[in-house]
């Protein structure tokens, strides 16, 4: 089947884009009659696969770091980068315990979490949400005080599950995830200046810079797509 990768372009997409991209893919096929396949995994895994020669057409990363990485290795084409969407960081709590707060320099996470409450997010040194959370907490001067209370999950979804089930007293997730979760409430949004902007950069993979793939990339950042992104709570730029 090696031919298939040529016929039908494969889009490497961060797992958090799963829903939106599937809908956009359907819309693309409906509009152009062309098929498109996706591979959803962690941005890091996808980057490593590109490095190993995976014949993907487009790489949609969940953060700039991994896009910079592939660019640096000359795997993706810098000039094609688009950043159509972003996200914001929110503090969530189990719905039954939720009470709105405001996060600023004087807000104490330690008091907020209580005696032994934990705060769930992604792995703070590798999963993007965790990295953002750590940066935000650090810039707020809170990281050193609560770093042993931070539990790092394998993905945003797993962090969400910990809060949903009340195992963690609170969580730091993307607004998109919070929007679809059932038993959690957003109690605060992190100040935008407490962390670098959360962005989803897309680029075409080296050697795949064809007319068709350009059209696909354009569609992924075009108006139809943006409507869908909005539906799933992304911040559309």
């Amino acid at each position: 089947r090696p031919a298939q990768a040529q016929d039908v372009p494969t889009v490497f997409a961060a797992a958090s884009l799963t829903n939106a991209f599937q809908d956009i893919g359907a819309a693309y096929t409906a509009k152009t009659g062309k098929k498109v396949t996706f591979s959803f995994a962690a941005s890091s895994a996808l980057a490593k696969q590109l490095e190993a020669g995976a014949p993907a057409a487009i790489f949609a990363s969940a953060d700039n770091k991994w896009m910079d990485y592939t660019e640096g290795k000359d795997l993706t084409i810098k000039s094609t980068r688009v950043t159509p969407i972003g996200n914001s960081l929110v503090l969530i709590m189990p719905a039954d315990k939720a009470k709105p707060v405001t996060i600023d320099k004087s807000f104490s996470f330690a008091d907020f979490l209580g005696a032994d409450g934990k705060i769930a997010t992604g792995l703070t040194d590798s999963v993007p949400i965790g990295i953002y959370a750590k940066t935000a907490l650090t810039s707020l001067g809170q990281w050193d005080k609560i770093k042993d209370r931070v539990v790092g999950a394998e993905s945003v979804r797993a962090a969400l599950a910990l809060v949903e089930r009340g195992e963690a007293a609170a969580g730091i997730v993307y607004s998109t995830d919070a929007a679809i979760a059932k038993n959690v409430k957003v109690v605060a949004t992190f100040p935008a200046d407490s962390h670098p902007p959360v962005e989803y950069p897309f680029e075409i993979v080296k050697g795949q810079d064809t007319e068709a793939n350009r059209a696909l990339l354009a569609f992924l950042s075009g108006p139809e797509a943006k409507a869908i992104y909005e539906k799933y709570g992304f911040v559309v730029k």
Partner: protein
Amino acid sequence: MMLTPDEWTAVLLSLKVAFWATVWSLPIAIAVAFLLARTNFPGKGLFDGLIYMPLVLPKVVVGYLLLIALGARGFIGQYLAEWFGIKLIFTTAGATVAAAVVSFPLTVNAIRLALEAVDRGLETAARTLGANRVDVFCTITLPLMMPGILSGALLAIASALGEFGATITFVSNVEGQTRTIPLAIYSATHMPDGDAMAARLVAVSVVLAFAALLLSNLVDRRVRILIGRT
């Protein structure tokens, strides 16, 4: 219980991967178990250790190592592609390799235990009756270690059905090609309304596991009767 077409694709793919992973790894596992249980050669300890590596390493690392070795630019993969036209990345064949590699230590271990339990006196008896080593292996050793081989096959199927980390890292998560049930479950958990889908797929996994077990038990009973170990 109704599955969506996508889910069916994942289920059928999982079955295919588990089946081929088992079929390919069994003979090799038997050969390796034989080497480990019956022979001595320099570097055997190292070899023995290597066999257990896929078990001891995080599956993601196993996948990553596979990627490095067998990817399109991998030090083995590039020749596979060049000489034989075999492409593993993104393909079902690659998913099969990942599943086979991860289950390999389990299969070898089960077969090895069974092999060590075979009475060597019977093998000697067969040789005095004119059977050479290969003949003895096929007619005496192999049938007598059948329960172990079956058990190894069951472990291989089960672990292939559950394999996630190495697969997604090595061959990514491509629908219809490499998206087996576990990967579909992973994707489902990243969808807002994915919980029901995840639950359905978990249920399918469980059913498949029971089916495999049932089948293996049936075969096992027959085998045991055949080899007189009832």
